[in-house]
């Protein structure tokens, strides 16, 4: 059984609490970023592109049985690291769980600045898109 969204968030928060300083935290994010499977360049179509002024994000969504699976990529590695965390939380969850979730871990692990509009890194839009897909899918299910 896949863990619930709130359980995964708690896991991430406790993992991050072990870092002593920003360097360790960002080194970990960079590692995560490198571990995200790359999307092939020819699959990076404009319709999957979430435009940010600073870095670009491509997001794919598919549905398998009751679960939603997200795949995403970015041209910036730190952005990718955060994407990896979002995917870990949301992927293979039920649409309505995603739609109703309360995402608090980003704030708790001190990465909130990456989700501010001023960063223009596509992350905030990506999060909105992830939820929107889930909301749309959970509606069609009813």
């Amino acid at each position, binding site marked *: 059984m896949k863990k619930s969204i709130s359980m995964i968030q708690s896991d991430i928060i406790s993992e991050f609490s072990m870092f002593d300083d920003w360097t360790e935290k960002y080194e970990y994010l960079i590692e995560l970023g490198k571990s995200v499977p790359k999307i092939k360049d020819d699959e990076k179509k404009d319709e999957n592109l979430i435009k940010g002024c*600073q870095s670009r994000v491509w997001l794919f969504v598919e549905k398998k049985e009751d679960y939603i699976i997200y795949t995403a990529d970015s041209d*910036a*590695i730190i952005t990718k690291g955060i994407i990896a965390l979002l995917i870990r939380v949301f992927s293979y969850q039920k649409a309505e769980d995603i739609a109703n979730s309360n995402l608090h871990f980003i704030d708790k692990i001190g990465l909130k600045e990456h989700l501010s509009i001023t960063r223009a*890194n596509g992350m905030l839009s990506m999060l909105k898109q992830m939820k929107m897909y889930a909301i749309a899918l959970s509606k069609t299910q009813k």
Partner: protein
Amino acid sequence: MINTQEIRKQFPIINLNINRSNLIYFDNGATTQNPQNVIDTEKEYYEKMNANVHRGAHFLSSHATEKFEESRKSVQSFINAKSVKEIVFTKGTTESINLVANGFRSILKKDDEVLITEMEHHSNIVPWQICCKYAGAKLRVVPVKENGDLDMVSLKSMLNNKTKLVALTHISNALGTINPIEDICKLSHSFGAKILIDGAQAISHIKVDVQKLNVDFYCFSSHKMYGSTGVGVLYGKEELLNDLPPYQSGGEMIKDVSFEKTTYADLPYKFEAGTPNIAGVISLKSSIDFICKIGIDNIKNHENTLLNYATLELKKIKDLQILGTSKNKSGIISFNINSLHAYDIGVLLDKMGIAIRTGHHCAQPLMKRFNIAGTARISFAVYNTKDEIEKCIAAIKKSKKMLL
């Protein structure tokens, strides 16, 4: 030589702590910080002067108007314009360019040509696209060479009798290249074309003498010259400004209004509709005082020393490429480190309290020309030091190590 330590004391923000480190501010191309005398003037205006200008008969209004016009005089002498009538206050470089581009819609004829360059900021591209579309004129783009210099041979070959206007930047915000404006003015004028210069990146870094350069229009922003945001200047030769139709209309810019016919106010008021950013305009004089007290040539030399030192040190970092290597450069360094994304570098430097700019710098066509998504950019001002550069170089090395 200038006393940087004394200068730094005048900037409250320079002594801020960001992410637990002393702020190192290397994003001066985007905006410069304000010295205490500018902040004080702004504050004093609201404490002792606040009133609308050019209107009331009461004490405050005439006092504010006097200060407002003193600021205009100060700008006039700073750039050596012939008359205060040639100094129009706007909200920034962008608005100054738009004001002229809007006027040229009705001056340009079908098949006339406007020349811009590949290194322009979007705000010196889009207004001309719109203007040309409106007038049926042709917008032509002068290419940039590999080292970031303007391709003067192409420029010469593209100029012809149909060229009515040449619009280009004095200093490129992404490359640092200083364009040979005086020569380009001579060339353009020999074809009867007028010339507009985007001086946003030049005004607080090198001496600007509009008569010596012989430019027709010159645009700049107060916030890039140690002043407040929301204030800019359009310099235009008097006879050309007279021929240009009004931009915005309403209060302040009129002589007489009736429903049959409205006559416009004289220069420069014809272009200053509505209530301006009075505090900002008044404090612009304080920014100019600040610059003049140090001396623009001293500022230029200081920034040039920083540029040379930083360039030398950056070049020692393996796989680091500098975009823009013109011999004639201002204190702006754009770079990339092989496959690393500039955003990642920017995020990590920020963690170390260093503010730089990353991205396309509002110059997407230029980025396309060099086939890159963007760069990381360091840009200097008078308060920056060699010590800050050393810290920044160390931080770049650390970031590179973390990201690779």
